[in-house]
């Protein structure tokens, strides 16, 4: 089935670059958040609880075990800050997450979005790419769409 976001209305595809192969009814979903901004994680957890199907947010205290934790908990979506501090190889983490936990869909999250980074992360197997410069509504919608099996690229332009 070839579907376009344009089928949903004239403005649907304008700002969000959304692609969907199979749009399913919303299922219960959990999110693992790999980000060094604790305020963001706290706020995201509070906001996600407004979504009826949201079951819980997993935090990562130790980055070195994040893939192990994901493999055990199998979150629906892994929100991965690609600009992790301290010289952490986030792209390597992305690769390992995709290889070891393929059922968890990785949504790349960044404060430094670029077309090149979209290419590098999406071609490695990320399900989405979201700039930190977008609105909170669009961030939440992106998470929900990835849960539904859509790929999402949200830049602030």
């Amino acid at each position, binding site marked *: *089935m*070839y*579907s*376009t*976001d*344009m*089928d949903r209305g004239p403005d649907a*595809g304008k700002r969000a*670059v*959304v*692609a*969907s*192969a199979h749009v399913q009814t919303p299922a219960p979903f959990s999110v693992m958040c790999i980000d060094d*901004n604790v*305020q*963001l994680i*706290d*706020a*995201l957890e*509070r*906001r996600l*609880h*407004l979504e009826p199907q949201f079951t819980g947010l997993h935090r990562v205290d130790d980055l070195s075990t994040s893939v192990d934790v994901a493999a055990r908990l199998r979150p629906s979506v892994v929100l991965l800050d690609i*600009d992790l501090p301290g010289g952490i190889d986030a792209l390597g983490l992305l690769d390992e997450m995709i290889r070891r936990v393929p059922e968890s869909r990785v949504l790349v999250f960044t*404060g*430094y979005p*670029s*077309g*090149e*980074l*979209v*290419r590098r992360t*999406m*071609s490695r*197997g*990320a*399900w*989405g790419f979201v700039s*930190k*410069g977008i*609105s*909170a*509504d669009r*961030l*939440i919608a992106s998470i929900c769409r990835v849960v539904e*099996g*859509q*790929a*999402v*690229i949200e*830049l*602030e*332009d």
Partner: protein
Amino acid sequence: MSQSYFRIELPVESQSVPDELPHEDRELHRLQRVAMLGTLASGLGHDLRNLVMPVLLRLDVVSASPDLPEKARSDLASIRQSILRLQRLASGLRLLASDPFDQRGEAQLTSLHEWWQDMQPIVIDALPGKTVIEVQIARDLPPVAVPPATLAQILINLVLNSRQAMGQEAAPRLWLHASVARDCVILDIRDNGVGMDAETRARCFEPYFTTRAREYATGLGLSTGRALLARYGGDLTLGVEEAVGTTFTITLPIRGTMAVGDRRERRRVRLLIQDPRQLAMLRLLVRHRGLVELPATEASHADLTICDPEALAAIVKAGQGTTRNGQGSSGDIIAIGTPPDESAEPAVRWVDPRDFSVLDDVLH
């Protein structure tokens, strides 16, 4: 329009370049300072974003409370507006900090109306507080083929020139006016400053020519701006001499269009791709190149069809081929994948799904 949102006072005086240094060293010193400011702006923009997102998320949570008094709801809406402004400022800083000479991986098109939303707080802040800014940039202008960051840096340079020219003006005024010519958008930037004398008008595009103290200017702004625009088929010119002020005109080419009679129409693309990730990336490329995406199921004429091998097989079977004018035709065809047989469909261009960068040239 005159309030100041965010102001960073940099200790420029204390970092003055020693006079005894040779000219080349002084230039190097200045360039290092410019680079440092770029890094600072980029870091500040990043930090602002990190701070803004949690606030927006919390605002959503509070606003969702059903028993909120109307007054509180109105306060929350105002807070949200201010925060969104801050987010725009962060986006504007990012545009200014980006390297204008290397925008290969970035959006190649600028929607001027949205771009101005990002630029506005920075332009306001770059001018004296009493400056009135009049802007006419229509929402429905076609996207122009110059990256947003490149255009941002050219504009801010012109605005800083205007700031200097309007230094003694009691009622400083800046006009930004965009209009469509045949295959370009013309952006005029006019101020009511002191204007230029004959020598300055003649030499202003010369590299290193400046009327400002060397301490504060490199004399490269206008020549660099013109060179940057030339890369994209655009131009920067000085308007005719007027009694008051100076006008600069930025000519911005429109791309993703083709001539139809005496009009230009945007190219229409149909994406027949099942893989969600490929589709999302292709959709981004199509949008960044200013092309119009047709619904996958609509039987209208496309100038270009990008499809996967399954869809290609269906197109070939239906006999639409690569004709450009038939009802519901596919136009040029790009298939994403590995060609099954070299001789199967010679008119089809195949693109490796692991490297969409080649599509940049095709879609331009």
